[in-house]
């Protein structure tokens, strides 16, 4: 078999093979960082090759151990999985490239070998979820990424990182175990674990109560992992107290993988087979998403800490994605997928800029960042442009995803108009909290106690990464062909009946 045919499994196995070896490396200089970024970059290259292949030939199937699918474990890489692979490995590469110096500043030299090993394991877990076609396998890889994420968060400089990590551990394990119960009920009623196979066998048992409960548990478990509105308490905490490069990586892709699982279960399993009951499940999500993006944006407006503010803004943005998913229509899927892609770009850019500021100013408290505009012009400009994309001003990626979301929502008629207004209200709130940072950065005089001498521009790799992301934001604002073709292909897959 040619090497390219092995990519579907190699994209997960490469970091999985390197991570244990990385844990053995002595903490000399930035050797662990180097190994981590090379592996991450290679995975990113493989992900791009896979996406190109998926765009031409459609879904790729790969059977592990050469066992036929319902009996062995099969990997299915559709357009959505390919996009997720790109987002995860891309976010990891960018975060590693931009975050080397801030990681050295925040985490001591002697802890880095284990830290970067956990980083690769977190990435492996997320990639494993995106690639696999087996319901129980998703649980196993979800556990790998979660365990590694708890360790990454616990390495934060301040002592609150420990309690943030413990709360994240309890919530994450509850979510994963709810998901496991859901899969257990599905297995009890269908007798198989492969998602595609389960979909075919679910039709004749779909009216029984245990299948409804299975859907409820899976959605609840995944919502807990994705920090959906009422259960989001752990996410802002984790982003604030985790080392900043970890926050870049998580903000861009960690919670989105849980939404990826929700989207797959909702559209592949519940919608085609459960009929009326499935729309009950998703309509129960709409009020939660509305609550999510209203409360998320509102709290973000009054937040004093920059990273915590972006955490709450992530809660709001995830609310948009779940709104797209819960519309259970082809336009809804397209909107959700496009926002997967664009939100990763926006949040990665914002957090890279914040990493620069925290590195030079030593704190992420907004008041203390006064006058950052004058001292670090390039970083702050990058932050502002990313903020503009977050708000959804035309010619930016944010606008494209908002545009498709509003188009999808308007299909609902009366309710759609109300939802559109609410989306615009939350975008206005986004303007407020981005402006709050801009005002502090440019128009406020630095706090007198703050010595501005030592402060200079952010390190070169961070700036390069920031501006690569900002240009990507603008580029995908003007020519969003790649995410849109992938989204349309996936939507066709679900509704066109190609699968």
């Amino acid at each position: 078999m040619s090497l390219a045919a092995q990519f579907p499994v190699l994209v997960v196995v490469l970091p999985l093979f390197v991570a244990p070896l990385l844990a053995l490396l002595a903490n000399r200089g930035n050797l662990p960082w180097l190994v981590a970024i090379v592996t991450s970059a290679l995975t990113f290259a493989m992900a791009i090759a896979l996406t190109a292949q998926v765009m031409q030939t459609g879904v790729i199937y790969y059977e592990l151990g050469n066992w036929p699918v319902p009996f062995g474990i099969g990997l299915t890489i559709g357009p959505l999985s390919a996009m997720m692979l790109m987002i995860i490995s891309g976010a990891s590469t960018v975060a590693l490239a931009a975050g080397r110096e801030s990681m050295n500043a925040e985490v001591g030299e002697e802890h880095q070998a284990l830290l970067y090993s956990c980083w690769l394991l977190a990435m492996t877990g997320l990639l494993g979820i995106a690639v696999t076609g087996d319901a129980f396998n998703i649980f196993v890889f979800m556990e790998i990424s979660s365990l590694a994420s708890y360790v990454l968060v616990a390495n934060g400089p301040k002592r609150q990182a420990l309690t943030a990590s413990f709360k994240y551990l309890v919530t994450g394990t509850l979510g994963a175990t709810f998901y496991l119960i859901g899969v257990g009920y599905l297995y009890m009623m269908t007798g198989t674990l492969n998602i595609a196979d389960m979909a075919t066998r679910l039709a004749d048992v779909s009216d029984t109560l245990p299948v409804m409960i299975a859907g409820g548990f899976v959605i609840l478990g995944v919502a807990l992992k994705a920090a959906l509105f009422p259960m989001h308490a752990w996410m802002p905490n984790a982003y604030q107290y985790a080392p900043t490069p970890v926050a870049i990586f998580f903000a861009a892709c960690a919670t989105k993988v849980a939404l990826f699982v929700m989207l797959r279960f909702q559209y592949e399993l519940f919608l085609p087979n459960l009929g009326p009951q499935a729309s009950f499940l998703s309509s129960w999500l709409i009020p939660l998403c509305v609550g999510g993006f209203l409360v998320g944006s509102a709290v973000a407006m009054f937040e004093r800490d920059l990273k915590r503010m972006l955490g709450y803004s992530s809660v709001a943005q995830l609310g948009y994605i779940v709104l797209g998913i819960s519309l259970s229509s082809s336009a809804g899927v397209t909107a959700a997928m496009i926002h997967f892609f664009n939100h990763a770009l926006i949040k990665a850019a914002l957090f890279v800029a914040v990493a620069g500021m925290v590195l030079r100013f030593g704190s992420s408290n907004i008041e203390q960042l006064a006058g950052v505009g004058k001292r670090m012009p390039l970083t702050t400009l990058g932050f502002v442009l990313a903020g503009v994309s977050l708000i959804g001003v035309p010619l930016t990626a944010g606008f494209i995803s908002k545009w498709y979301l509003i188009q999808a929502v308007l299909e609902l008629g009366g309710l759609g108009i109300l939802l559109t207004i609410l989306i615009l209200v939350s975008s206005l709130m986004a303007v407020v909290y981005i402006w709050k940072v801009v005002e502090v950065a440019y128009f406020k005089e630095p706090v007198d106690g703050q010595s501005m001498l030592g402060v200079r521009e952010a390190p070169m790799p961070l700036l390069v990464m920031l501006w690569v992301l900002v240009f990507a934001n603008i580029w995908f604002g003007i020519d969003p062909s790649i995410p849109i073709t992938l989204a349309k292909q996936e939507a066709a897959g679900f509704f066109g009946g190609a699968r």
Partner: protein
Amino acid sequence: MTLLGLYNYWIFILLLVVGLYAVLVKGNYVKRMIGLGIFQAAVFLLYITMDKVEGGTGPIMRGVPEPGQLYANPLPQVLILTAIVVGIAVTALGLALAIRIREEYGSIEESDIRRQDQES
């Protein structure tokens, strides 16, 4: 007869509720880890209840199995072997965090920790 047939599921529900109650309500971090352990053990019970076949033995086919022999379903057992190790992995990490929190905060009670966080 339904009592014996569905009793396993009822005990699963009871353990689920007991485990969740301990995780959500108890303030002590080690007690919450024990609650998490009970909650995961309940899920193990749900899976293993599925594998029992009336009159079947364990899925070990020594020698030539006589045709009529029924075997228990091996698949849930494989899944639960994996889930048990996940449970112990999470418990170990949770306890390590509880130890570090005790050293940094001086206590592992939710109320004390929140009070110290608000003061600082």
